[in-house]
């Protein structure tokens, strides 16, 4: 069992949230953003219709520790291609990247989808139906692991 971040330390962690690409589905992302804020994280909310480079620019300016990308309309893989490379290019090599939502169209098994997004450089991918406490728990564990010099917590 890995350590979990002390909830009082959450305010020192800045997270950027948004819905990537030509995607207007804002509700889930808004619920997530509110839950993160309520949990005490510092959240920078970009909202719907956010191009990949806007996530990066916001992360630079706010010195964010993590980016949470939502994609609900099935085009996520196209929109997220090269996302980690953009981060590396912008000097954000180590930023924590999460992605979640309806990431692909059709009935591809989740393990396959997850591997695809991990291969794109995301640290974690979350399937449809993920509840916010699960995301917060993962964040707490990952940032605790980072404090110990690891990239992410063992899953």
């Amino acid at each position, binding site marked *: 069992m890995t350590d979990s971040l002390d909830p009082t330390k959450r305010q020192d962690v*800045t997270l950027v949230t948004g819905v990537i690409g*030509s*995607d*207007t*589905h804002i509700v889930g992302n808004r619920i997530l953003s509110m839950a993160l804020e309520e949990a005490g994280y*510092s959240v*920078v909310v970009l*909202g*719907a*219709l956010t191009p990949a480079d806007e996530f990066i*620019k*916001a992360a*630079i*300016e*706010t*010195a*964010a520790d993590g980016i949470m990308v939502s994609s609900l*309309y*099935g*085009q996520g893989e196209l929109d997220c291609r090269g996302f980690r490379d953009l981060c590396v290019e912008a000097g954000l090599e180590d930023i924590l990247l999460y992605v979640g939502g309806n990431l692909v169209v059709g009935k591809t098994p989740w393990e396959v989808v997850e591997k695809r997004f991990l291969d794109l450089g995301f640290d974690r991918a979350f399937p449809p139906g993920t509840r916010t406490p699960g995301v917060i728990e993962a964040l707490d564990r990952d940032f605790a692991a980072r404090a110990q010099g690891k990239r992410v917590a063992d899953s």
Partner: protein
Amino acid sequence: MSRNAATALLIDFGSTYTKLRAIDLERSEIIGSGQGPSTVTSDITIGMEAALADLEQQIGTMPDFKYRLASSSAAGGLRMVTVGLVKELTAEAARIAALGAGAKLIGTYAYRLTAGDIAEIENHQPDILLLAGGTDGGNDEVILHNAEALAGSRLDCPIVVAGNRVATDPIAACLGSAGKSVVPTENVMPEFNVLNIEPARAAIRKIFIDRIVHAKGIDRAAEMFDHVLMPTPEAVMEGARLLSDGTDNRQGLGPLLVVDIGGATTDVHSVASGDPTLEGAIQRGLPEPYVKRTVEGDLGMRHNAASIVEAAGLEMLLEESRLPESRFREILDLFLADVERLPDSEDEHAVDRALARGATRIAVRRHSGRTEVVYTVMGPATAQHGKDLSTVAAVIGTGGVLVHGSDPAGILAMACADSNDPESLRPRSPKLYIDSEYLLYACGLLGSVEPEAALTLGLTHMHPVAQEEHRHGRSSAAG
């Protein structure tokens, strides 16, 4: 004129002329105007005395003015360099703040300043540098790096620090120990996508009043005025704000746009919230200020006439001027060679009109927001970037070509929405006015002491122009 009448003298130390407006405050009337050359490079008092003599000749005995307020764009205006982190975020916020303070931007930088950037900034010799970067609690490395780079430079102008508040004290210490003059203020972008430009504007204005006025030699005429309050572009902006908002006692014109076509640049000011009026439009990008100023450095009737032709397209201007290309070019060359030339023939007026229409169309299009249709799996969605000015109630034009030209309505109509460019959120059916007495700056200055009189003065002297035949913005020639 009795010595006791409540009167005000409003002075504009311009780049070409020193202009005066004498105002009767009780009746909100112009008593007289005066004009002299701009002599700031030699001795500003010479031009001022000439302007006063001109005024005195018109009105007889000079009244004992209750206020003598000045603005200045002389000696190159308020020349500023801005520095931020991400180009579209804090660097843009810094740019907006400087423009809002009436500055002339001579350099804008983003990310880490390189040795080459520093050399360039040293060459620019700005009057003020505005240093931003990072939201509060956000990135502080880059602004610290840039502060150190500036500390090691030969730059000797005041530096306004308006970045990540965590970095402000170390930056002030770093620049201070290098002998730089530092003015710390609030962050221009305290949170992501939240603009906070007023504190930086106030800091810039204070430096302008306390130091730049002296540095530029304007205070040599100090006996002839009480205060230089602000740079002239800011005075125009304040005049526009007053005319739009009105006062507690008198309604203004509502949301408005000012187009100021000059010899070197075309300035556009909007006083409007700019919120989306299209149903379902999603606002994207940096929020823009309620009072927004843009300066188009490539659109000027003389110094930048060639780049108007480049931006608007020669073919269109030829069609608008109804002149053959050789004749058009001949006149264009005349204008470029003699930047103070006033048109003195039908043909020259036609070229001026075509240039002004081109400059207005492009400047207002750049100033205004745009919609973009994004195709999603749920169908098309509309994203809006910038300010929606479609419901703006009034467009005011100022500048020589509008005041003295043959077709002010035809020029101002180009500020309006265009069915060929429906994505551009320009005013749909505004009333058109000309600032024929060149009073906007005077209203801005006077508004700081007598807002009621300034508003009445402005409202009664903005001259409505007929617009029926031009309502849709273009003759068949426009494209």
